[in-house]
Every structure is written in structure tokens, then in C-alpha cells.
């Protein structure tokens, strides 16, 4: 997804320069996804190009687009925690330390990483007015275009082979294949009770249920913590659709917080939209047993969304729960992880509109009471 956003950023800058304009910054936050289609949203970023000016956003483009893509592809280092930790992106010096050695031979690394890191280091205490110097020496838009065309090729060549991950083969598990039919019937029937504007599928894995309800909603956001799975979903959606499904990488036990100045420059997950339906299918055991969150706290959080919920209860006896408890003593699992406690926590927060047993598990259709 970041690669798609980077490509759009460069294409727009190319078009802008040929029209006598430029983009005054280069941040991925200026690009949002409508479904899985990248859309540039910061019209104010376009400004008249002043002859002689270099590309002011080049450094930012490198820090927030290029270096994250490079370290993911060439060093197999996930960039999400780094971008989440710093709105300013990844410094050239950090990228250099991750991309030295043989990785420095990859396209763009020598110039955009090594050379830039060296230049930043050597010029860090300079007071020179470089913009003025470059302008009077004849810098022009054609030079920026040459650089943009080069970067388009560099970005195009960056490919990340996600390979297999913990959850990439989840959909082929026996219990998944046998339960999917009746579960899909339940989910699509509830989703189809009325038109849905925004559906969140939390713990979406291969987005099977996101796709199942895509025709019943304006937008479906498929959230999963496994980057390899989400990347595979994005590639599939980009080529064959549907185009109203947005896959996102996010750990529900540690979701994206508010970032930047006073924590409000970039909003946290809960402030980015108001879903009218939330799917929480086969995810509760990961949160309570896997991430050790109290069941009551999870239900409280779900209720705070103020949305209808299709919720799947996975008991402690379930094989997938047992897998999570394999290296835990019973005392290390929340003692109230049982259906009776679940119903107690739901009471007062949700009305249980409907429920359906499913091979030891149970599906609930929950309506918020406030």
C-alpha cells in the first residue's frame, strides 16, 4: 500500500511540474485510501513552482516513503513500528545502518540513502543558504523531473516477498474450512438487515468475511495484525476488487494511537470513523488469552464503538484456544474467560438480538443498548 501511495505521490509531482506547479511536501498522510484505491487529499500541497527552487519535499519523501519501502524489501525490517514511533519518518542515518553492505547495491540505496546520509551528516551545522546558491547556479524544474523519473524506477523495482507468516495459511485449517459456510450465512444475513455505511472486520485474516459483506456496505475496513496476510489481500483487491474493501495492518491489542503534536495530528483508530457494523470473528481468544487483556475490558472497548456487532465466542476448550494456552498455566489465563462471564459483561452494554451455536463456538448478533 505504501508503494502504491509512493507511486501516486511521484506521478502527481511529475504532472504538477509539467504544469508549472510543485508539491510542497511529500508525506503519506496526504494520501488516503478510498477502499483500496490511493487518493491524494491535500489540495493545499500544490503550489506554484518558483524557478530555481529544488524539490523541498525530497527529504520527506525519502524518510516517509522510500526508506520504509527499502528496509522492508531489502532488510526484511517492518517499517510500521518505526513510522508509528516518529511522524517525521526514518532518518537517512538509520536507513544507512540497515542498508549497508550488499544491500547498498540495490537500486537507489547508494544515492538516496548512503549519499544523503553522508550529506546530512557533513552539512548538519551549515548555515549556508543552499536554496539561494542552487537557484543562482541555474537549478530548474527539469532537474527535479530527472530525479522524479529516477525515483519512479527505484520504487517500481522495490518488491517485498512476504512469504509465509504465522497466519498466512490460516484459511486452509480444517476448522476454518468447515465453519466458514454457516458462519458466512449468519454474517451476511445480519449485515444485510439494512444498508451499512462502514463495516469494520477486526481480525480479518484473509478478509473472507469482508469480501462476503462488501456488496452490502459502502466501505469495509479489514484489520489484521499480520502484515504478510494484509499485503496479500491488498494485492488481490487491487487487481480483482472489490474496490470498497480497505485492508489495514493493525494489532488490536496495540492499535495506532494519536500521533504528533498533542497526539492529535494523526488520529487514533477509534477517531477515524464510526462503523455501523463491527465483525469480531474468531478474535476474542487472541485478545484475552493471547494478549492477556481482561475479557471485561475488551467487551467494554467493543461497546465504546457504539456499533452493532457480530461476535464469535471461542471457548477455552476450542482447539485454537488450546493452542494459545499450550505454554500457559491455567492460573495465567484470565479466570473469567467463560461464556457465563461473557454474558454478564454483555448485559447492560448490548442486547443479544440473536445467537447461533457453531461447533462448540457461538455467534452473537449484538445491538448496543445506549
Amino acid at each position, binding site marked *: 500500500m505504501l508503494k502504491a501511495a509512493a507511486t501516486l505521490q511521484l506521478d502527481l509531482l511529475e504532472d504538477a511540474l509539467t504544469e508549472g506547479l510543485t508539491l510542497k511536501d511529500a508525506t503519506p498522510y496526504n494520501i488516503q485510501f478510498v477502499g483500496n484505491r490511493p487518493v491524494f487529499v491535500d489540495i493545499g500541497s500544490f503550489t506554484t513552482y518558483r524557478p530555481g527552487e529544488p524539490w523541498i519535499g525530497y527529504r520527506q519523501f525519502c524518510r516517509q516513503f522510500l526508506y520504509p519501502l527499502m528496509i522492508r524489501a531489502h532488510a526484511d525490517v517492518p517499517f510500521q513500528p518505526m513510522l508509528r514511533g516518529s511522524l517525521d519518518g526514518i532518518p537517512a542515518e538509520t536507513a544507512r545502518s540497515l542498508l549497508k553492505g550488499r544491500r547498498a547495491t540495490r537500486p537507489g540505496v547508494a544515492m538516496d540513502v548512503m549519499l544523503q546520509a553522508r550529506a546530512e551528516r557533513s552539512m548538519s551545522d551549515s548555515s549556508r543558504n543552499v536554496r539561494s546558491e542552487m537557484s543562482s*547556479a541555474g537549478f530548474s524544474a527539469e532537474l527535479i523531473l*530527472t530525479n522524479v523519473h529516477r525515483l519512479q524506477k527505484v520504487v517500481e523495482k522495490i518488491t517485498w516477498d512476504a512469504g509465509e507468516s504465522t497466519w498466512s495459511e490460516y484459511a486452509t485449517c480444517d476448522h476454518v474450512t468447515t465453519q466458514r459456510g454457516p458462519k458466512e450465512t449468519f454474517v451476511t444475513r445480519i449485515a444485510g438487515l439494512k444498508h451499512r455505511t462502514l463495516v469494520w472486520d477486526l481480525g480479518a485474516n484473509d478478509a473472507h468475511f469482508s469480501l462476503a459483506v462488501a456488496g452490502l456496505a459502502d466501505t469495509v475496513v479489514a484489520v489484521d495484525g499480520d502484515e504478510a496476510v494484509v499485503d496479500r489481500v491488498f494485492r488481490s483487491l487491487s487487481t480483482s476488487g472489490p474496490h470498497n474493501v480497505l485492508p489495514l495492518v493493525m494489532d488490536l491489542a496495540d492499535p495506532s494511537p494519536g500521533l504528533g503534536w498533542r497526539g492529535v495530528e494523526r488520529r487514533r483508530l477509534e477517531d477515524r470513523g464510526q462503523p455501523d457494523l463491527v465483525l469480531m470473528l474468531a478474535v476474542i481468544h487472541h485478545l484475552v488469552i493471547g494478549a492477556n487483556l481482561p475479557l471485561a475490558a475488551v467487551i467494554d472497548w467493543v461497546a465504546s464503538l457504539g456499533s452493532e456487532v457480530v461476535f464469535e465466542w471461542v471457548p477455552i476448550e476450542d482447539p485454537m484456544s488450546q493452542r494459545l494456552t499450550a505454554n500457559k498455566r491455567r492460573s495465567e489465563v484470565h479466570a473469567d474467560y467463560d461464556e457465563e462471564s461473557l454474558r454478564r459483561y454483555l448485559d447492560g452494554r448490548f442486547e443479544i438480538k440473536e445467537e447461533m451455536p457453531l461447533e462448540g463456538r457461538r455467534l452473537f448478533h449484538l445491538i448496543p443498548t445506549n
Partner: protein
Amino acid sequence: MILGYLDPGTGSLIIQTVLGGAAGLAVLFRSTRRRFADRKLPAQAATTDGSASELAEQEIES
């Protein structure tokens, strides 16, 4: 509304001449030659170039 300040980075600006191909290298050459000229002839350059004037003043003070 948040108004962020974008630091273009001095080093990142300079290497754009290198990344601009042959024409960029020509800009780098002209820029470098001008800086050396300003250093050698601060008084003369001060009459033609603002940045050189500043540099000349610094050298005189030191």
C-alpha cells in the same frame, strides 16, 4: 488544523544536483565555483551576491 514545518535538509537539497543528472552536475559545478570565488574575493563578491556578502562579513570579523 496542524501546520507542520517541513525541513528540506541542507544535505538533501545539495544532493539533488547530483540526482538531477548531467545538468544537475553542471549546477553543482557552477555553485561550487561561485562559492570558491566568493571566498577568494570577498570584497569584490560582496557587491554582486548577498550570500557572499554575509560570508565576507564573517571572515572579516574573524
